[in-house]
């Protein structure tokens, strides 16, 4: 049952909760789940491609192992910024375009997503790294070698 005052067939009490036609099912259920599956398969293909190109892909090299704090902060901010933009794209496509949600949801995503990414995740990861370094220094091990894979 469409809520009173809802615009057309897009807005529902909760997106996808009350499908009226097959297009509702397509927009709210099929396309999101199919996209998630395609994304997962793309991950697997990416691994396979790299495996063919580089041979043993299990060698662990971390671009920020042993790097300076400035480089680590820039690395995290670059990751968070790119990921945040893609996150907004996900919200816009799947919630607004396909789901027919109100644009206030995008404003929520902008505010809450940025808070989560830049006020919680990035500082949290930096705090964890700081703690890790403190423990390393107390244990007398010093900073790890830059970009050297661990011995096998």
């Amino acid at each position, binding site marked *: 049952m469409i809520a009173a005052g809802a615009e057309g067939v897009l807005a529902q009490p909760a997106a996808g909760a009350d499908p009226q036609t097959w297009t509702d099912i397509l927009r709210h259920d099929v396309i999101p789940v199919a996209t998630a599956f395609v994304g997962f398969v793309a*991950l697997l293909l*990416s*691994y396979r491609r*790299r495996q063919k190109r580089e041979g043993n892909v299990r060698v662990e090299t971390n*671009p920020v192992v042993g790097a300076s704090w400035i480089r680590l902060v820039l690395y995290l901010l670059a*990751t968070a910024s*790119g990921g*945040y933009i893609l996150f907004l794209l996900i919200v816009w496509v799947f919630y607004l375009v396909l789901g027919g949600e109100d644009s206030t949801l995008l404003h929520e995503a902008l505010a*809450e997503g940025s808070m989560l990414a830049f006020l919680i995740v990035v500082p949290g990861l930096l705090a964890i790294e700081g703690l890790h370094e403190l423990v390393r220094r107390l244990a007398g091990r010093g900073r790890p070698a830059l970009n050297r894979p661990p011995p096998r």
Partner: protein
Amino acid sequence: MGLALWGVLFGLAMAYQGFGLVKNDDRWPALSDVLATVNRSTPGRWLLFAAWLWFGWHLFVRGWRFFLRA
């Protein structure tokens, strides 16, 4: 019935993950190996971060009112 099916699927996934970790062979990669490889490229890191951010926002943050009340 549906819950049991989810339990079975999750159990199979965890069992394979454990097998992949123990086997340590590129022919049987664990999911963590796949994610670590994807994480080595910048677009891959952005995608993983976006998915992680969406998951956390959708489940825990969306519709927050100050202070932590839904």
